[in-house]
């Protein structure tokens, strides 16, 4: 790792002010991606500003039809939250499948979204549930937030403070985990909103990061059941292809994980 300056922020405002002072600052949340990348010398921030101890960024609130998860809440806490398990069980399930136990103790929802890894889990839930990402400056809809591989609508120095998820009528998540990294080779989140809309998002599949899957949404609108997807064909065009799986393989996974997600939905 190259040299860097570590700062522990005392508040969100302090974090933003410290960020502005560094020549190439980075926010550090759980560090489960940033630190490995820094160790590989693929990132060399002049300053890292630690958000993980800010109490104002930690916690889960359920009120009415909204589950709000503050940005520095670790995956473990989301997976174990009785409130989340009750309101959106698929979201608690998703959090319980990220990385391994040690990673889930440190990794955070805000860090995952700000990084927007094309195979990360949370982006699928945020997009399928139509969540709102709140920052220290504004609210950003899921549609506007994700901008392709490792790219988001966040401006330089903008800090995610919380994510608000509308409670759906039903939702499910299924993923084919990469056996070593636990990232999604492909993961699909299906949601039936309380107004009857169907929203489906896939992660790990597209070259442009998380994506909606209109073909599956239409099929589920007509018939909410795994068998409704039997006749659906997902195009391999624009899908990721690497040593772990071809684009055709991932296209099939989108369908199969979609079926499993519907079967698991509650």
């Amino acid at each position: 790792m190259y040299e860097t300056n570590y700062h522990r922020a005392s508040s969100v405002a302090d974090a933003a002010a410290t960020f502005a002072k560094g020549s190439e600052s980075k926010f550090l949340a759980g560090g489960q991606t940033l630190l490995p990348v820094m160790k590989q010398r693929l990132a060399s921030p002049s300053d890292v500003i630690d958000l993980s101890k800010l109490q104002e960024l930690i916690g889960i609130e359920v009120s009415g039809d909204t589950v709000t998860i503050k940005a520095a809440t670790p995956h473990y806490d989301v997976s174990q939250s009785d409130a989340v398990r009750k309101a959106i069980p698929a979201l608690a399930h998703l959090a319980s499948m990220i990385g391994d136990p040690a990673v889930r103790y440190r990794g955070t929802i805000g860090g995952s979204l700000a990084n927007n890894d094309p195979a990360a889990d949370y982006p699928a839930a945020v997009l399928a549930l139509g969540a709102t990402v709140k920052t220290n400056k504004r609210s950003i809809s899921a549609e506007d937030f994700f901008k392709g591989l490792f790219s988001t609508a966040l401006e330089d120095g903008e800090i995610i403070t919380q994510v608000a998820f509308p409670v759906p009528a039903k939702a499910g998540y299924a993923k084919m985990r990469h056996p070593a990294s636990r990232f999604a080779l492909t993961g699909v989140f299906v949601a039936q909103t309380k107004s009857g809309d169907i929203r489906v998002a896939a992660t790990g599949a597209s070259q442009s990061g998380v994506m909606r899957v209109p073909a599956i949404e239409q099929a589920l609108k007509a018939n909410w059941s795994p068998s409704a997807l039997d006749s659906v064909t997902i195009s391999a065009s624009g899908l990721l292809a690497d040593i772990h799986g071809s684009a055709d393989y991932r296209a099939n996974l989108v369908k199969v994980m979609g079926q499993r997600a519907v079967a698991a939905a509650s």
Partner: protein
Amino acid sequence: MSTVKLTVNGRAVSVDVEDRTLLVHLLRENLNLTGTHVGCDTSQCGACVVHVDGRAVKSCTMLAGQAAGSNVTTIEGLAKGDELHPMQAAFRDNHGLQCGYCTPGMIMSAVDIVHRHGGKLDEETVRHELEGNICRCTGYHNIVKAVLDAAGRMKVAQAAE
């Protein structure tokens, strides 16, 4: 350079380190606690697992500064004097180690697993929960046996307290 103050195995320590220092290097190089190992250094193998404020985390994926003010327990802090922790005793009795390299991390993760699951542990759960710890001798069979054995012993020990 920064001064990092933390508690390690019950002892308050103050260490001057470069800001880029990882927690595992503070433990090994500044405090000479070499029981915590660096295996892969890419956050995958779990040989570096220690407890930070009661949670089993990878000390190679945490800056030393992030642990300032925290309570850290390493493999050296588990035994009570000459009396092994029930997890350490179970690893010995069940031949839960071969070369021993992954063992400190395995034991620290395993203690955390038992704390979280209590008496409800079964083989499938242990195997799933040990995903973040890799044994390159592939000695998982006896590791899982040791964790299940220790879970029983820890329950008995807790009941006796």
